[in-house]
């Protein structure tokens, strides 16, 4: 091991850190996340050993860097070299004792700094419970971020309610003007506070991030819905356009709801396209949609509103302007 005696200090000041998760694990942890009482995150990185000791680096990491590290966008080398303090701690541990060294950033032994391509693999990352994180850069303005959160929440609420058999869809309104506003507001009221989406944090900078607190299981379904949209985007857009123009050609939006519903029901194209669209976008939610609401015309309006929200979210993800900290979008099948 490198001789670090000149950096020795008498006390290890980070002994109160609490283990959070392992980021690299093979026959024991090699890179782990630890948190302080004030929620500052430190990484503990294995770097060397001899017969008696294992040597670890302890260094601070900012959340915007941690998210990019686990996404595989920032290397371990980058987060060590550019860690926010001007020094880090190197600790030699055996089963009983601990030697601590305080080392300036420019004095870290070169052999302890990994290669330029020391990237983690997002598929091996176990995310934070009930937190969905997204990262972004550059041209985002705060209104666009609010819109991103709003659309994510609306899709989340739709999926939560449509998958919850105890919520009767006949109680949901689709009324005259601002129908979708009423509809999504009512949907939100059916999602329990402890399971619904809340904005946990926005770091409005470049690089920035957004953290949404929401139930992991339903968040996963929401991300899968976005992925399904991305996988079938051209077909979905085609069916949507056909249905949209068919409704327009028949002038259904200008008719009284009752008359529009009758005309929709009498038109084979409308019925077929609505069925196609709901099959492309919904899984279990089809029963929920078919089991309530007044008629297929209203149902088609609801599914089209849901689609537009998926489309907005997908457009952010497709062009990479937003990356969700989850391995779901990192497979070749999109």
């Amino acid at each position, binding site marked *: 091991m490198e001789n670090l005696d000149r950096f020795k200090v008498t006390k290890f000041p980070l002994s109160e850190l609490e283990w959070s998760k*392992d980021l690299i694990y093979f*026959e024991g942890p090699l890179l782990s996340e630890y948190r302080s009482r004030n929620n500052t995150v430190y990484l503990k990185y294995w*770097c060397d050993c001899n017969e008696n000791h294992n040597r670890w680096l302890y260094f601070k990491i900012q959340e915007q860097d941690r998210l990019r590290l686990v996404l595989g966008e920032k290397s371990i080398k980058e987060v060590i070299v550019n860690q926010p303090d001007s020094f880090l701690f190197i600790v030699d541990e055996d089963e009983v004792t601990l030697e601590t060294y305080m080392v300036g950033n420019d004095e870290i032994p070169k052999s302890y700094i*990994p290669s330029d391509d020391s990237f983690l693999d997002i598929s091996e990352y176990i995310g934070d419970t009930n937190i969905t994180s997204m990262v972004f850069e550059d041209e985002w303005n705060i209104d666009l971020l609010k819109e991103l959160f709003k659309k994510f929440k609306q899709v989340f609420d739709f999926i939560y309610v449509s998958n919850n058999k105890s919520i009767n869809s006949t109680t949901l309104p689709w009324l005259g003007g601002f129908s979708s506003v009423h509809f999504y507001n009512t949907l939100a009221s059916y999602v329990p506070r402890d399971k619904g989406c809340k904005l946990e944090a926005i770091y409005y900078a470049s690089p920035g991030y957004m953290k949404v607190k929401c139930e992991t299981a339903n968040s996963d379904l929401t991300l899968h819905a976005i992925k399904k949209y991305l996988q079938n985007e051209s077909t979905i857009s085609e069916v949507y356009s056909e249905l949209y123009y068919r409704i327009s050609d028949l002038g259904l939006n200008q008719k009284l709801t009752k008359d529009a519903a009758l005309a929709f029901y009498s038109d084979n194209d409308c019925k077929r396209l609505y069925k196609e669209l709901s099959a492309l976008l919904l899984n279990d939610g089809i029963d929920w949609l078919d089991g309530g609401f007044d008629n297929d015309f209203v149902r088609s309006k609801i599914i089209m509103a849901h689609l537009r929200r998926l489309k907005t979210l997908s457009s952010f993800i497709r062009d990479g302007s937003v990356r969700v900290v989850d391995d779901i979008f990192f497979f070749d099948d999109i």
Partner: protein
Amino acid sequence: MKYQKDLDEIPSCPPQNAQSKSTEAYRIVHDPLCCKSFMPPGKISPSRVKNKNSGSQNCSLLALSFFTNEQEAIRHYKALEKKINNIHKTIGGYLAFGKLSANDGLQTPPGRNTHFDFYESKNTQLDSKFKITKKMSER
């Protein structure tokens, strides 16, 4: 089982899905092979594996890591080496190949990268069953 006393202290260890069967397997080792090449991490270097407050992987720490596929074992090692320069110092930098028989112990089902945990039977001596086939470390 080897380390029975330690295994007894951990609930459901070895895991219920571990089976005894015959398998050709690859293991990352130091050169030369010796009895320490087949000691589980919880025994060979307790100070590395027992991080303060770390999770519930104690059972796995009493098992040996193997791969069923040579290329996956090499790929895994190379990926680790990119992330940690001195990885060869703690897990070794060589690949050994051998055959585990049903009497040798219990194997967990292989994961996506063909890695599985192996819990040795009491009298198993794996150092005589395995041979180094490749140097993987660049260092």
